[in-house]
């Protein structure tokens, strides 16, 4: 097959994919970007009847290198701080004109936890029917890895470097879900790219919620977290399995579910592959103390969110992200 024929063939195969492609390839995300994957998964389970308001940040930048766009749904860029306000405005306009299209707001953790927070709080408080999705890569990545209030304690960023005096960030990651939930919030949840079925379920629940909904997706960033680009899903999964990244749902301020952990891993398994935590493995009492601190935070999460209180059902592929070969076959007639 010559090249043009191969290309034509690929594009016809692409058109037959049994999923909605709200975000096309050709985007300029780094190799192995967790956020690009997360955004595609969100649109896969919400599209095509959606519009997106997108905050400044990596997602906005890597999808829209003018004059090209990787979005196949209506998409609008907002300034860094006002994504929720823009989404709220779109929703109000749709409502006035009786249009049922769902409004989504996309932002990074900087655009959610910090600079976009005020607009987000207002949007929720006014009860706008918007699903706000935060792609949590735990720092301001697009401007070169500065710490945000989502950056976990002890992680090194360019503005919270590790050195002789400090072991990376000194402050705790903000518990944004609890803050959002405190708005008498109909639906607030956390998800991870390592558990795509669970993620897509939560998007669907958020979409079906009449009124504001919030979903935070833990999205590895190979550049900022300094891990091998192949390991993004693995790192995300380890985050969940250690208890550092609890996957929960909250409705009206109350926790209504937690993804149970089948096996609990020590936090070092999660930290080791990431360069942003490399300094914690130095032979240094301060480093050892921070490691113990992170382990204590994970243990606290496991107890606080009840991550081990229920056992996942066997074959519950959401919780295990497990795979099995073949279908559950029925015994064919005439079998001995």
């Amino acid at each position, binding site marked *: 097959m010559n090249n043009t024929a191969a290309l034509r063939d690929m594009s016809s195969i692409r058109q037959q994919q049994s999923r909605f492609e709200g975000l096309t390839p050709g985007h300029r995300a780094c*190799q192995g970007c967790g956020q690009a994957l997360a955004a595609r998964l969100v649109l896969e389970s919400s599209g095509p009847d959606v519009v997106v308001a997108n905050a400044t940040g990596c997602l906005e930048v890597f999808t829209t290198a003018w004059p090209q766009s990787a979005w196949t749904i209506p998409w609008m860029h907002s300034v860094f701080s006002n994504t929720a306000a823009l989404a709220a405005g779109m929703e109000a306009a749709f409502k006035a004109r009786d249009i049922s299209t769902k409004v989504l707001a996309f932002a990074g953790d900087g655009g959610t936890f910090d600079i976009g927070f005020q607009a987000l709080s207002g949007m929720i408080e006014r009860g706008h029917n918007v699903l706000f999705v935060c792609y949590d890569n735990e720092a301001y990545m697009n401007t070169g890895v500065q710490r945000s209030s989502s950056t976990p304690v002890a992680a090194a960023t360019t503005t919270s470097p590790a050195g002789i005096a400090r072991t990376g960030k000194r402050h705790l990651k903000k518990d944004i879900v609890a803050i959002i939930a405190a708005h008498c919030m109909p639906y607030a949840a956390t998800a991870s790219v390592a558990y795509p079925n669970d993620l897509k379920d939560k998007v669907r629940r958020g979409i079906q919620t009449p009124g504001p909904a919030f979903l935070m997706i833990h999205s590895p960033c190979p550049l900022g977290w300094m891990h091998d680009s192949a390991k993004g899903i693995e790192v995300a999964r380890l985050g969940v399995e250690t208890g550092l990244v609890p996957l929960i749902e909250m409705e009206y301020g109350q926790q209504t579910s937690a993804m149970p952990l089948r096996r609990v891993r020590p936090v070092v398994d999660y930290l080791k592959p990431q360069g942003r935590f490399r300094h914690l493995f130095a032979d240094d009492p301060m480093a050892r103390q921070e490691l113990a601190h992170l382990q204590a935070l994970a243990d606290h999460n496991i107890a606080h969110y009840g991550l081990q209180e229920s056992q996942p059902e066997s074959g519950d592929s959401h919780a295990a992200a497990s795979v099995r070969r073949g279908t559950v076959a029925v015994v064919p007639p005439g079998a001995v």
Partner: protein
Amino acid sequence: MAERMTRGGFAQPGSAMAFKTGSWRDLVAPRHLHGLAPCAGACPAGEDAQAYLAPLTNGDVKSAWEILVTANPLPATTGRICHHPCETACNRGQFDEALAIHAVERYLGDAALHNQWAYPGIPQTTTEPAVAVVGGGPAGLACAYHLRRLGHAVTIFDALVEPGGTVATSIPPYRMPKEILQAEARRILETGITWQGHTRVGSDVDLDELRREFAAVFLAPGSQRTKPWDVAGVVPAQLHDGLALLHTWMEVGSMPPWHKIAVVGGGNTSVDVARALKRCGVEEVHLVTHNGLPWDAEDPMRAIAREVRQAMEEGVVIHANCGAERLLLRGNRIIGVVLVAMKKMRGADGKWHRHGFPGTEQVLMVDEVIPAIGQTVDPSGFESLLQGLDYFDVDHHGRMTHHQGLYAGGDARSGSSGMASPAIGDGRRAAAAIHAALCNNPLLPEKQRPLVPITEMHLQYFETAPRAEPSILPVAQRQGEAEIEQSLTARQALDEAVRCLSCGNCMICDNCWTFCPDQAVLKLNHTIQGDGSPYVFDMAFCKGCGICANECPTAFIRMAPEQDEQG
């Protein structure tokens, strides 16, 4: 074009798909690589268990059997008697418990007999002159079957009336029912093979005659001559050979009226003789072997672990790492045997020797000592080929290097492990070699796929599940010809197939399709490609991040140097 606009104007953006991020790949690209599952690597008959377990996961029993018999035409037989090294090698054994491959193999074999399925892919036309096969045991039957698959006419010569060889004559019915073997052998002959029973090569027909009249000759006479045996130069006056006793028992169902017996030998024959003696009411049956127990790491005995375990359940006492040092005689009569502890050790010359340790002697008071220490090829008729050796010398393909047109395999070849499934593998390889020679084609080496060790798999995606266990007759019910190990139910067999980790082969889990951040993995509608998967990489967009390979449970995706990429 949409891409040009004036300040303050409006334009539809172009699609980002015009930007081919595939150019970002840095030296490595993902690639489908159908690796060799350890089960397939270990099967002496050449089966790929994974390949036939796959259709079974969808309930397709017939396709599973049809794939299985592309390598082994006797699955209901090997499913019962094979020592199943596939299960020892199975990756799942390091995860929870190995797949019960032999039990599924047996299930498929039984299903085929029950439904009277015929072998697929046997051509009608045959090329003459025919190929002669000497010996209708597993090796000869497998060779004949594969020759038929390759379009050749075949005649099998056997001294016995019925096909099946040693499996038919020597393996007791409690683990190998006669009618099962006969049905499978008959089905092989029905592919259009001429059966010349009751014809011994060497007396009824001459080997040279066969070489003249046939295009090629495959020798699979097994090993039928008992090895000479003595204890410190002494042979009992009335020597009872183990295999001969077993044959008598299988024909007439009884043994001499003994009370205490020692059987010497560490192979399947000694175990079956010991068990037969026990069934005939002998109170004490001792089995003495130089080797360790089958599950010992060092110097294990050759008998199959399962059989040794069952023999022990039935009351056979095993004396492992022991040798018979002296017979205790009263006149000509044996009253006992002296055992001594032994160990295989490397001597100063670098070779392995067995050492007995003085001071460890123990006396077993027994009525008889029965050797069951193995056989060699019966040389009559083959003297010119053997030239005093015990077995035929052949290369990997069964070719007798110095004798054009002659091939050999099974128990009769040197280096054989004396088991049925390697004999079947020998028959298959020899058939391929004969086919190549008769067609004047070069003999291509079998395609080697790289083995997939468990360390290359991504096991976090699998859940533990208990292995299917066939039911086993309790010792009290092990009588007559009743089979000890039962078949799996259909439900058990199907569930067991689902336990297969699909090592090195796509299991269609969608992980790569789901996780690629660049949608560079595309799924074809219901098409399985030649490489065994319905996925393709769109290299125009693949950035080479490696996520798909890292999340592929089966290690079917590998990151490989770009130049190896085959489009």
